[in-house]
């Protein structure tokens, strides 16, 4: 066996399992409709991988990832609307609610290349500016959580207010094609699912490399002892901003792929409620583990859909109870249950001696 297989056998097996489940099992057992649904959840899972990095490893309680999901989603949706309208054309809803003209800031998104770049670059830029400003001032913990949540709320309100340019409460929908591919063709729907699954796998691989890297170790150090890291010559604000930006990019890509799969993006997908929803999946799956956040997001989204199909009003309560149970009894999520089983005896160490106060 090569050293990498020996040392990382369990992780590699995890990747293989995710790949088989997404690329072989799911497409053969699920209907086109269900597969599309799973594709949407896969997009949520991408957001979750980013939250696992920022929150699980970096300790930043990111309660506003809907913003970055939404930025990616709206960029993609604007492109698809313009694409459907044809060269120089005006999207249908603008003729309905607006003055029948495409606003200037929409124009760049006619270009597929600019769109693809912007899907990652706009969330990255926003996250960098915000993150740097916030972390440099030492804003942490609950203050950061509240701030990021307020951001999500403000973003949703902004979108709702701009009906003529963002579709308002309805959001953007009614897409017919995705970079020239007909969205009503089941083959293309399947292709979109594979693209999303591939993107999720790549993000998991990226997260794995980050966790193994020196940066990953430093991020944990910043999470646990920010002050100490500072006195070793690092700028903790920079360390945290990097993780925050990566998480935003993952959320942006998830949002961008969500749009063609779901066929709609609206303020309901980006505000406070979905932002908290992302976090709950991560908490349940195990925020500091590699696969936990993505699995948690998939499971929670799946449970939400099944439960709300049968008991429409129950889901919110169920989600709340689940969250409380996990936070209270399994702070590391369900992933820690398996860790308990596998727990090997740690090398014997002397207990730390009591601090003597004799000299005071």
């Amino acid at each position, binding site marked *: 066996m090569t050293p990498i297989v020996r040392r990382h056998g369990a992780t590699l097996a995890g990747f293989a399992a995710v790949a088989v489940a997404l690329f072989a099992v799911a497409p053969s057992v699920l209907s086109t409709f269900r597969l599309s649904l799973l594709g949407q959840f896969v997009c949520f899972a991408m957001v979750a991988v980013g939250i696992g990095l920022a929150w699980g490893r970096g300790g930043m309680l990111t309660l506003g990832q809907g913003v970055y999901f939404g930025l990616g989603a709206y960029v993609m949706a604007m492109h698809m609307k313009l694409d459907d309208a044809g060269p120089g054309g005006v999207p249908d809803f603008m003729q309905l609610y607006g003055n029948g003209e495409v606003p200037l800031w929409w124009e760049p998104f006619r270009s597929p290349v600019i769109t693809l770049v912007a899907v990652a670059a706009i969330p990255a830029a926003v996250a960098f500016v915000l993150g740097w400003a916030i972390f440099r001032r030492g804003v942490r913990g609950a203050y950061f959580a509240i701030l990021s949540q307020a951001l999500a709320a403000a973003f949703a309100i902004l979108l709702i207010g701009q009906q003529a340019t963002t579709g308002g409460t309805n959001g953007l929908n009614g897409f017919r094609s995705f970079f020239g591919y007909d969205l009503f063709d089941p083959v293309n729907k399947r292709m979109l699912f594979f693209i999303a699954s591939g993107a999720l796998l790549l993000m998991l691989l990226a997260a794995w*490399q*980050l966790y*193994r*890297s*020196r*940066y990953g*170790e*430093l991020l*944990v*150090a910043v999470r*646990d*002892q920010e*002050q*100490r*890291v*500072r*006195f*070793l*010559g*690092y*700028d*903790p604000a920079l360390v945290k901003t990097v993780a925050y930006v990566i998480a935003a990019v993952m959320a942006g890509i998830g949002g961008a792929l969500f749009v063609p799969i779901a066929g709609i993006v609206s303020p309901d997908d980006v505000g406070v409620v979905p932002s908290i929803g992302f976090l709950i999946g991560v908490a349940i799956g195990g925020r500091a583990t590699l696969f936990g956040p993505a699995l948690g997001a998939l499971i929670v989204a799946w449970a939400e859909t099944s439960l709300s199909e049968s008991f429409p009003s129950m889901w919110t309560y169920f989600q709340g109870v689940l969250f409380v149970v996990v936070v209270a009894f399994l702070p590391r999520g369900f992933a820690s249950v398996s860790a308990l089983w596998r727990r090997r005896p*740690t*090398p014997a*160490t*002397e*207990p*730390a*001696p*009591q*601090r*003597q106060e*004799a*000299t*005071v």
Partner: protein
Amino acid sequence: MSMTADYLELSDVRVEFDGFRAVDGVSLTVLQGDLRFLIGPNGAGKTTLVDAITGLARAAGSIRFGRTELLGRKAHRIARLGVGRTFQTASVFEDLSVLQNLDIAAGAERGPVTMLRARGRTPERIDETLETVGLTAHRDLKAGTLSHGQKQWLEIGMLLVRDARVLLLDEPVAGMSGEERTRTGELLRRVGADRTVVVVEHDMDFMRSFADSVTVLHAGSVLSEGSVAEVQSDPRVQEVYLGTAPTDAANDSDEAVA
């Protein structure tokens, strides 16, 4: 590195908290190779002085390391200039191994590419440091499982591994057993020979055994300074520590002090 010896020079350093002067006009000079102890009763301002030097507390006056003014710089910049500190309560990264702790300490100058890769072979500097602080056998243990004394050694190791030129140690032997104290003192003597070291300490026995020179801080100001013997025979020091000037000052044991 410069050929001339390093030194740390504080002049008229003041730190205020809402009008309260925790450090009130401290001037002192510490030379390389001179193991300096900073003592004084609780609340004298020792920790605040270390905070001022390392950029944690906002201060007035002047704090120079060689020719470089430290005041006004950000904490991580001061650290990069070679000024390292430990904290009164051991603050290692408990979730990381001893090796990872040292590797992080060694790496503030690493570029992005190195940072994004996993560590390959253990850097030689880290092996040497593990040897110096006596933690070679514990390198793969989580730092959180170390004893209190071992954590303090790891903290000192984290300064050595990045070759800090100034070491500011805030009560490094508090809570240590007698044997651990002796080992710590010997370690400080060894690493202090070519560094500028300030040890904040309460323990008089420890100070007597290892200090080259002593500065006594009281109510934010320097009360006395000199060799161990000079400071101990200073009636003002005896007054601060014991309320009166005792006749048997030499007999006071560590629990009577501070």
